[in-house]
């Protein structure tokens, strides 16, 4: 459990990152857990709260105060008002992300409520965290938010390049939670025909996780040849999250950073035993060695 959480956490952190090493500069100066808790507790300096929320998640704090303080930070959000400062919402989003990494189910009810927040960035963070927590309670809400399909939930917004719903995060959460009911499968299948390759990738990843059927791996492996680097990166992370060992060769040959290939291959080693045993972990390790 801890293992699969830490891998999916890494995968998610990397998937949204342009430079694989960018996390380092985001880390800022080293602080202690006590300092992080203190920074989150005060409320004058929002940037300190923002950093502290990130820190507690990144370090998977087990301190008893971490959960209540992060929940309080999640509650600081307000209705979205583009004209006003949205610092509290930024803190709430970081708190939602951190709550997924603590691994404490006590966060689930408030994360569920955040899935219906007006801030789609917060809905995205909450969806990812509920996926990390494998919160079966979230399936019904995720299905409801995605029910209108690619033409509704998956339609582009007028005011930004984002979609009506954070479809990628929500689809990935459904895959991670692991409830393979027909209603879930049918809904996700509709998104495999979405215009955007990143959404198709997320849908195929979820279907592959839920069904184990090789037909959903094919589109992902084709996306490893996509002309856009960003799409190839997403397909790498998705195949790694599923641990689809037959993708070993295509992963090694795609044009992308070795850092991302190594993360994907780690997924093949750690998550891959329950798929195709014809490719042994040893072959994946030797492929990893040559990418160092």
């Amino acid at each position, binding site marked *: 459990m*801890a*293992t699969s959480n*830490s891998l999916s956490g*890494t995968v998610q952190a990397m998937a949204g990152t342009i*430079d*694989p*090493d960018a996390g*380092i*500069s985001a880390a800022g100066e080293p602080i202690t857990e006590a300092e992080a808790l203190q920074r989150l507790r005060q409320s004058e300096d929002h940037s300190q709260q923002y950093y502290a929320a990130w820190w507690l998640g990144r370090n998977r704090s087990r301190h008893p105060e971490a959960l209540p303080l992060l929940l309080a930070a999640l509650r600081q959000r307000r209705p979205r008002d583009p004209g006003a400062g949205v610092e509290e919402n930024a803190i709430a989003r970081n708190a939602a992300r951190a709550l997924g990494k603590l691994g404490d189910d006590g966060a689930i009810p408030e994360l569920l409520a955040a899935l219906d927040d007006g801030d789609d960035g917060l809905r995205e963070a909450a969806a990812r965290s509920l996926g990390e927590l494998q919160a079966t309670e979230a399936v019904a809400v995720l299905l409801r938010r995605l029910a209108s399909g690619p033409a509704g939930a998956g339609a582009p917004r007028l005011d930004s390049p984002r979609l009506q719903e954070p479809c990628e995060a929500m689809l990935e959460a459904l895959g991670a939670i692991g409830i393979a009911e027909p209603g879930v499968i049918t809904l996700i299948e509709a998104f495999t025909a979405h215009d955007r390759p990143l959404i198709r990738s997320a849908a195929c990843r979820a279907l592959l996780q839920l069904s184990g059927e090789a037909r959903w791996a094919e589109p992902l492996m084709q996306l490893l040849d996509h002309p856009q*680097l960003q799409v190839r990166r997403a397909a790498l992370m998705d195949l790694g999250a599923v641990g689809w060992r037959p993708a070993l060769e295509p992963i090694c040959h795609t*044009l*992308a*950073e*070795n*850092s991302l290939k*190594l*993360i994907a291959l*780690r997924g093949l*080693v*750690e998550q891959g035993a329950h798929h195709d045993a014809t490719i*042994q*972990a*040893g072959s994946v*390790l030797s492929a*990893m*060695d040559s990418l*160092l």
Partner: protein
Amino acid sequence: MRSVEIDPIGERIEAVRQAASAQALLDATCALAASDHGNGVNNEAIACLVEVLGFNNPGAAVAAVNGLIALGPEAVEPILESLDPRNYGARAWAVRALAGIGDVRGLDLLEEALASDIGPSVRRAAARGLGQLRLDALGEPLRLAVQTRCLQALVAGCSDGEWVVRYAVSVGLEGIGLADFNSEYLRPASRQALLGLSQPDGEEVPVVRLRAALALRRLDGQPSA
């Protein structure tokens, strides 16, 4: 008849410099990297391949690294001279090239990179390189001294915060432990460090434990799984 001087390497360098798209750069770099240098290595070709490392084009950088590794020791000085502390991507590729060439002149850089470079991809490449320096040409006392430095750097790398660096450290320790000319010190010290990386109380990431355990089996002469 007028003889026409044909310089395919010169043309290939020009093609890299003129490349107008990512794909063109990749193709031109592959062609330059595959050039046959005949009797003498072309310094301009080396300089051009080194330049490609800084272009933020992963495909072309892979090709350039392979080309530089194929050129071997001749490429070491130009790579060392080109290092740009502000370009992490380029540094990572340079360290990879030096790791692949395995020339002892890269030792200082590999040590420094593993110990303190901010980029995990740089530390990772350095750890791998420290386990595969080619030291056959050195005399015994110097060889041992170099290997001891490599070992010490790798042992320190066991506590790196990034799993991928610790993975590379396992690979590096295997290289040190398997080298032909082990003293009574190197192999046991490598084994001990690998033991720490192979156990759940010393290492939290499963793939690192698996790799360290594989290295231990190889050091002990058992068939690799």
